């Protein structure tokens, strides 16, 4: 083999090895860190059973926010049109966390409760994460999403 070919072969082999290692690592890291989004009714239907950690999306039920009197523990209920899921969180809630607003919580199930490690609220008045809208639409295929739940209206 002449030097040019040898150089080319080395480079190609090096790149190939790097690509294989990188691809393997990427697949591994993706598998470890993919978080699926489910709504309460999907969780109750058992769709999330195979995932340890997942994201729970829905609306914060009016009047469900309860603070503990001596720690930062807070509990609230996340609802969609046909399901409800109690959520427990230990920490400071985001600024835009309100009743009747959309919320996405990351965490895991503990019995019938969802223990959240992170809570994200929507970012401006009219914004609802597209994926949450889609997930809720999918959970109630055929039913109409309760658009009024999106508004800042007091519940009757």
């Amino acid at each position, binding site marked *: 083999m002449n*030097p*040019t070919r040898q*150089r080319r072969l*080395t*480079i190609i082999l090096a*790149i190939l090895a*790097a690509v294989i290692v*990188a691809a393997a*690592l*990427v697949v591994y*890291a*993706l598998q*470890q*860190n*993919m*978080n*699926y*989004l*489910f709504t309460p009714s999907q969780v109750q239907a058992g769709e999330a059973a195979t995932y340890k950690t997942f*994201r729970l999306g829905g609306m914060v039920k009016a009047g469900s926010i309860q*603070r503990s*009197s*001596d*720690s*930062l523990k807070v509990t609230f209920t996340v609802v969609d049109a046909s399901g409800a899921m109690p959520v427990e969180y*230990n*920490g*400071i*809630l985001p*600024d*835009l966390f309100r009743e009747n607003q959309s919320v*996405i919580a990351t965490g895991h199930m503990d019995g019938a409760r969802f223990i959240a490690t992170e809570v*994200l609220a929507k*970012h*401006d*008045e*009219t*914004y609802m*994460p*597209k*994926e*949450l809208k*889609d*997930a809720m639409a999918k959970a109630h295929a055929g039913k109409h999403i309760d658009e009024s739940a999106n508004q800042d209206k007091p519940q009757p």
Partner: protein
Amino acid sequence: MTPELGQLALILALFLALAQSVLPLLGAWRGNRALMAVARPAATGQAVFVALAFAILVAAFLRFDFSVQYVADNSNLQLPWYYRIAAVWGAHEGSMLLWVLILNVWTVALTLFSRRLPDAFLARVLAVLGIISTGFLCFILFTSNPFARLLPMPPDGADLNPVLQDPGMTFHPPVLYMGYVGFSVAFAFSIAALLGGSMEQSWVRWARPWTNAAWGFLSCGIVAGSWWAYAELGWGGWWFWDPVENASFMPWLVGVALIHAQAVTEKRGTLRAWTILLSLFAFSLSLLGTFLVRSGILTSVHAFASDPRRGTFILGFLAVVVGGSLLLYALRAPKVAGGKAFALVSRESAILIGNLMFTVAAAMVMLGTLFPLLGDALNLGKISVGPPYFGLLFPLLMLPVVLLLPFGPYLRWGNSEAPVLKQVLVRAAMAAVACAVIAAFFVQGQLKAIAGVAGAAWVGVGVVLYIVKRWREMARGRRYPAEMAGMLLAHFGVAVFLIGVMLSESLSVTRDVRLSPGQIATVGGYEFRFDGVSETTGPNWTAEQGVVTVTRNGAPVAVMHPQKRTYTREQVQTTSAIDPGITRDIYVALGEPMDPNHVAGAWALRLYTKPFVRWIWAGGLFMMLGGFVSAADRRFRVKREVEAAQAVTATLQESQA
């Protein structure tokens, strides 16, 4: 009347942009000098009209012209004047206008500083910039017109999103866009080279300062954004691997690779096709980034409400730019490729390995960022990729870069001999081990922190050794040309950045606590005493302001005033209090009152100590400085005439080789 003038100015700019894109291309193809000469005046004229449109929009904000929809949506009577100017780029329409304005700034700068380039080549470069500008002006005029009227005119506007009412907003987007858009110059240059079918080293020399400057701006923009997120948005984090952050980070990574590949191409004529490909990628990723921020297709802390009609146009434009340029590349790259051979141990090899790592890192970030879209398209469900994905892969990819970095300046072009490298290896390794041992006594056995200190010492000592070597060996005045000084500054920035990241990540202490007035919490060796909450007001907000007195072993350190602001439209925004320091930041954020009806009582507070967190941004600023300093090298500006003559012979020789 005035807003309509703004729209008219944009339409005129569009026509000039069309002229700038079509006529010079024809001229360069046909060898018609008159048509080529259209490029310069058309570009200048376009810039004047775009600047006029921008000024009219600024004026509309300053004069509270709520008959303009965009103004009514993004400002109100209470908003201070500086945030009203910042509100111009506070939402989609204005950001796009700012984008075009900055593109025009770059184009005009180009016409001013490129008089020595061959006419046909310059005509093609300006035409490509004109095409990009045409695309954006069409986008603005047809889908996101900032001058659309709102009738009847409301008495008061809505509000700029409170998150955006921060000093960061005044400079972060313009600087970031300067970086994004700056890559269009390297892009236009590459397309022009492909169209012309040849690429001379002198032209790459001419393109380099533009790329370096654009990269410097991008670094600055990212640092500003990170600092802003830290101070305002993120409850104390400096990087979240959020889709929008990634959007700016991808072109930056490719930009690093591009800067180095351009150096190889300019000095050695090697890696030409690769350099061209990288500049296509860098700009395509900038475009992708621009659109990701405002499109709302990804769930992000930055995502705002969006208009789905724009999606089609964006997708089409991206397809034309990315697809078109890659097609051209496939057709023409073999014509411009070529160069000298190099040995395995050489500067080219080292740069190539670094290039590989940076492009793979950019691809990795892109996969993680766009994976939710992919999952959606393949019906895998609603997926998001968590930060640990990036947190695991990115350091792994950067490890070889950090390890190779000290050797960079010592390596010779073409072929390098081992003894010098061994010497550097031994010295830098000794320094790294010594620093790691010393650090081990201070960081309570945190491996990450020790590794950070060792890595920083490895890189930093490597850079310093080279500085000393140049000082000894070269004559005064020739020791550090700007190009090299820039490189050394940027590489030193890597060392500073490493310290910041590794120490703040491993040694930071965060506690969410519940404190009644008078209670004390201890975090990271500091005592935080909560002294209650009082009311305060600003220009367009009222706030509950907490008082937190920080002491260390009884000695006073700082009195901090975190706020919970309520803006005119009932939007709530937390404003944290930060006591900055070189070796540590103290950070206090107000959560919520434990009992909403009893504000004077107990509150939830988040307390942090963050050692060395400022070094992260200091490192980024060093890198930015490196980009600017090397862009300022005289070598890029003078001698061009002479070089042009030499380059012809050089290409002849290479084509024979």
